[in-house]
């Protein structure tokens, strides 16, 4: 199995960015073709990895190196720090069933985002270079197995996003960009403290030095006795068990990304102000990094604390589901409505993960993938409308079905897929999250049954806001605020490029809904390993 495939996948965009910087700004759209070629290359690479990946049952839980394939492990920074020992930071990457589907999702969403950026006119060169840097950071986050490396990629993501929102965004772009930046930074600075704490609590059994390797951090056997985050020492900080505190800090860092109520308010602003492709990336990839971080890092390294807080996590999930759905019901801006629906749908991820059942957790991962496709599709559709008339207010449209039939078909499919119509991926995700949350009560007793019931109300509410929008905007006799000018602008139904972008998104949502084994076969081993890993500490 080729170990360089993953590295290639991560750093291709960097090479593309370097190449782009050599092409002069007058390069006649060459930049976007480079970006597209990079995206397609990555898609092929990740697709090949997806195909080559062989799910193997892990014997030693989630810390088992066997689980991680395409791994490569190269010493990166070695620094003698005197009495503090040697600093060991490795370039350690590898993928398992949690990260591989998300990698593929990211590659696809990136291609979609490049496609959606086709009409960008403002400093194209800078835009695509930033996009490529973001691309690399995202790929790195999903592949990193060294916590320090993870952190580097994680922070690296912020920078291009800040500029992409802040420069290419809408009217209140600066506010949104700064809000997004500060929110995320708020979470991640404390994460750094935990990383350092973990570093001093864990040694590499092979070299005896402290290490940032996540897999080594997971195994309590590698903990330094009596150290602050040692599983056995039971240290306390500020009167709270240190491991629980660390878990909470990490959880908040990732939960901001997910996002959870009440740490979600960056999301509507960022989504509304960001240009369409960035909204697509935000919803399609960035939110998943939160969920991925919770599963891989919070649950993997602190399973004991995760079990202690599971009830609260479930509650947060339920609150996010219902709150997000209710607030979405009150929106007039289509994009904001979809942003809030993201909050609601990502709540399912948290609820499923908190159930610590294979059904719930697999449902959560599946929901992440599904939401990646569908939210990208939804934001792209909003962008299509906005491109034409520069308005997104739901009340300013009526009867679009008669004006733009093909567009309406796309919207209707995307809406019904998002509200969990069977046959589409969201149904599998949400149904198994609900089932997982429900059986948690009788199998491991973590979540009470009412949480599953409350969560299912979110499914009902999602039907309400999506159908209301569909009825309000698309059906009825055509009546547009902008009158004939709008009608003329809208008469141009979905173009070939737009159709080409929508079809794979919807197609994948449909494919995963009809044949979920495509993703679940990969997810299963990792989820099983994680669930057993967590349940071992009970």
């Amino acid at each position, binding site marked *: 199995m080729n170990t360089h495939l993953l590295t290639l996948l991560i750093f291709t965009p960097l090479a593309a960015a370097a190449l782009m910087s050599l092409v002069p700004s007058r390069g006649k759209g060459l930049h976007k073709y480079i970006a597209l070629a990079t995206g397609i290359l990555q898609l092929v690479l990740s697709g090949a990895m997806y195909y080559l990946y062989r799910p193997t049952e892990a014997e030693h839980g989630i810390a088992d190196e066997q689980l991680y394939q395409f791994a490569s492990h190269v010493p990166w920074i070695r620094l003698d720090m005197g009495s503090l020992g040697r600093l060991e930071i490795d370039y350690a990457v590898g993928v398992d069933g949690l990260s591989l589907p998300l990698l593929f999702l990211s590659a696809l969403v990136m291609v979609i985002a490049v496609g959606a950026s086709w009409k960008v006119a403002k400093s194209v060169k800078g835009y695509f270079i930033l996009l490529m840097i973001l691309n690399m950071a995202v790929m790195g986050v999903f592949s990193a197995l060294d916590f320090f490396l993870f952190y580097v990629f994680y922070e690296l993501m912020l920078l291009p996003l800040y500029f992409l929102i802040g420069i290419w965004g809408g009217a209140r772009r600066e506010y949104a960009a700064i809000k997004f930046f500060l929110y995320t930074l708020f979470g991640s600075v404390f994460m750094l403290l935990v990383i350092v704490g973990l570093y001093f609590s864990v040694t590499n059994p092979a070299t005896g030095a402290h290490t940032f390797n996540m897999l080594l951090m997971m195994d309590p056997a590698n903990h330094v006795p009596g150290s602050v985050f040692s599983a056995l020492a039971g240290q306390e900080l500020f009167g709270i068990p240190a491991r629980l505190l660390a878990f909470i800090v990490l959880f908040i860092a990732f939960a901001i990304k997910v996002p959870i109520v009440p740490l979600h308010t960056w999301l509507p602003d960022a989504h509304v102000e960001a240009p369409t492709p960035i909204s697509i990336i935000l919803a399609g990839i960035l939110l998943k990094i939160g969920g991925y971080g919770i599963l891989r890092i919070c649950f993997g390294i602190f399973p004991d604390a995760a079990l202690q807080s599971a009830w609260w996590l479930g509650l947060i999930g339920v609150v996010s589901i219902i709150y997000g759905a209710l607030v979405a*019901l*009150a929106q007039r801006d289509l994009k904001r409505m979809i942003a809030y629906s993201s909050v609601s749908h990502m709540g399912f991820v948290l609820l499923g993960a908190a159930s610590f059942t*294979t059904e719930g957790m697999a449902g959560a991962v599946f929901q992440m993938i599904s939401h990646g496709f569908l939210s990208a599709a939804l934001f792209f559709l909003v962008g299509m409308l906005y491109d034409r008339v520069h308005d997104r207010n739901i009340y300013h449209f009526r009867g679009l079905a008669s004006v733009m039939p093909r567009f309406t078909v796309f919207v209707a499919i995307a809406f019904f897929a998002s509200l969990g119509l069977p046959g589409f991926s969201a149904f599998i995700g949400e149904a198994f999250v*609900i089932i997982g949350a429900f059986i948690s009560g*009788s199998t491991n007793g973590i979540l009470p049954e009412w949480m*599953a019931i409350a969560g299912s109300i979110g499914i009902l509410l999602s*039907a309400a806001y999506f159908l209301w929008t569909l009825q309000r905007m698309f059906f009825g006799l055509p009546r547009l605020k902008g009158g004939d000018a709008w009608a003329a602008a809208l008469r141009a139904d979905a173009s070939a490029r737009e159709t080409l972008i929508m079809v794979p998104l919807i197609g994948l949502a449909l494919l995963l809904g009809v*044949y979920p084994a495509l993703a679940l076969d990969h997810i*299963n081993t990792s989820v*099983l390993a994680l669930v057993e890993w967590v349940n071992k500490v009970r």
Partner: protein
Amino acid sequence: MPVPTLTYPLLATLAAVLMPFLAFLLTAATGKKARNGAVSIAAISISLLAAAYVFAHVWGKDPIHVQWHWFSIGRQAFHVGLLVNNASALMLLLVCLVALPVHVYSTAYMKGDPGIHRYWAYLSLFCFAMLGLAVAGNLLLMYICWELVGFASYLLIGFWFTRDAAIQANKKAFIINRIGDLGFLLGIAILYSGFGTLDIQVLFGTDTPAVSGTGNLTPGWFTAAGLAFFLGAMAKSAQFPLHVWLPDAMEGPTSVSSLIHAATMVAAGVFLLARVFPLFDGTVLFVIAVTGTVTAFAAACFALTQYDIKKILAFSTISQLGFMMAGIGFGMYHVALFHLTTHAFFKCLLFLCAGAVIHEMQHVKQKLGHDFDPQDIRNMGGLRKHMPITCATMSIAALALVGFPLTGGYLSKDALLVHGFEWAATQHGMALAVPCALAVASMLTGFYSFRLLAKVFFAQPAAGPLTGSHATLHDAPLPMRIPMLFLAACSLFPLFTFHPLNDGHVWLLRGLAPDATLPPLRLLHFAIPILATIASVIIATVTWRWYVLGKYPLKPQGALYRLSLHQGYLDALYMRAIIPPLMRLSAVLFWLDRHVVDGFVNGLAAGGRALASAAAWADYRVVDGLVRMTGKLALGLGNALRRSQTGRVQHYLALAFFLMVVMLLYFIFARA
């Protein structure tokens, strides 16, 4: 699990289910050119043949039970499977048998509609989902088909999507059905948590966990699961108080109403309950019986005063579904399924006839250019002379609905009533109210059915659009007439038994009969049919006098009348008591989100900024101020001292002298 061997009945089942799906794909791919519906009709015909073959193969013999591995979650495998037993074979055949006439009927009824290609696609999609629902072998697959029929129904109700009422109605239908779907989903979750499988055969076959009580479910959860499934059935089968979507759903094309909202989809709830029947304990059955009875009675009352021909039929459907539910509640699911079957034929026929009438009324409307509601029965009358075949078929259907001897309805409805009384005999005293209410509802059925017939066909035409335009009215065209005649034949007794007056010989009931039946009360088996028939004759006479002879004694302004006309104000209650608070809640939450949650964040940011400007001020004024003050002090001092430097020798000398003196004085006095 090994791959099941493909036997002919299995292939036939798959063909029956998948043919309409193929038709859907083909029609959708063809787009606007698929106007004549040939693909869909061919598909449903093949389905019918296949279904008949399956039925012949399965009825009374071993069920087909196969499953293919679909996906695994963790170590738990999920399957797509078929379970074709007597009930599902019957359902499979019934759906095809009703769907084919409706398809044929639609060729004429929907002719010339600009969106007809969508119509055929949706209709085929519906047939696929409904047939899938009938044969699905596990609850997950069944749930999927369950939602898909709802989706197809959504599409078809909103088929004329530029009509406001239609798109309001389909939204309402889907959302209310969603409530039921949640019940279904929770039921699935409860069963899965208890037994770790969703296979219907494993769960509810003979000697299974759900029956014998193994598995780790407490009795409370058993009841909850039963109620959850019932909630699902309530929404789909339009049971009180979730029935409100069905009258609105009449905004769809009439052919759609006949197939989906009368014969098949709305009966899916009854079918579901029959399928998971072993799950129900006494509490759940009692709840089902009472809900069914309340529905049957309330909907019959609402039907009494409606003027929209389709609304009358819609309420009648709800009422009849209530009868079926009550049958389930009595534990007599075979009777419920029997009534489902007879009802499917005659109710579908009623709608087709109504469609034929509406069709003609619309022609009149177009020709005259008058603006009137072609569905309002006050505008009709005397149509018997112009549409004799429609009149005859509709009369047969109405008589079946009323439960007149020689019809299928007579057999099934009387069986239901009889079993109702038998059931009441095994319960506490108050339970007798249930069958009594059903009997009253049955009489009300007679009333509104005869009222409809009288007003549309027999009474003198009111001073409406029909006066003077009779020449333009004629019977429905052939593609509409044949399905009507076919269904009329199916509504009569010979399809079910050759003994027209005794339900004991119905082959259908024998094939489905559960193991445990109620202790029979012989007398009722004679008394009830006779009494019911006499009652219907009396009611028929009364309605004839009232509506045909024009001796109407009541005033249409009474409180009860208005209550009935406005459907018990239930819709208004929902529109006032549920929707606005929900919308207000969402608005309040949004406000909170903007001002409290986000306000907190923004406040934090403002606080940070205030702190920063305070620090900047302090930095400029205090820290930097100190530095600048030192500099200024030095400068000022220098300036001050500079004054002494006059450049004049004598000044310097004087100063030197002065200092000398000071020093001297210091030395002198300091020494001292």
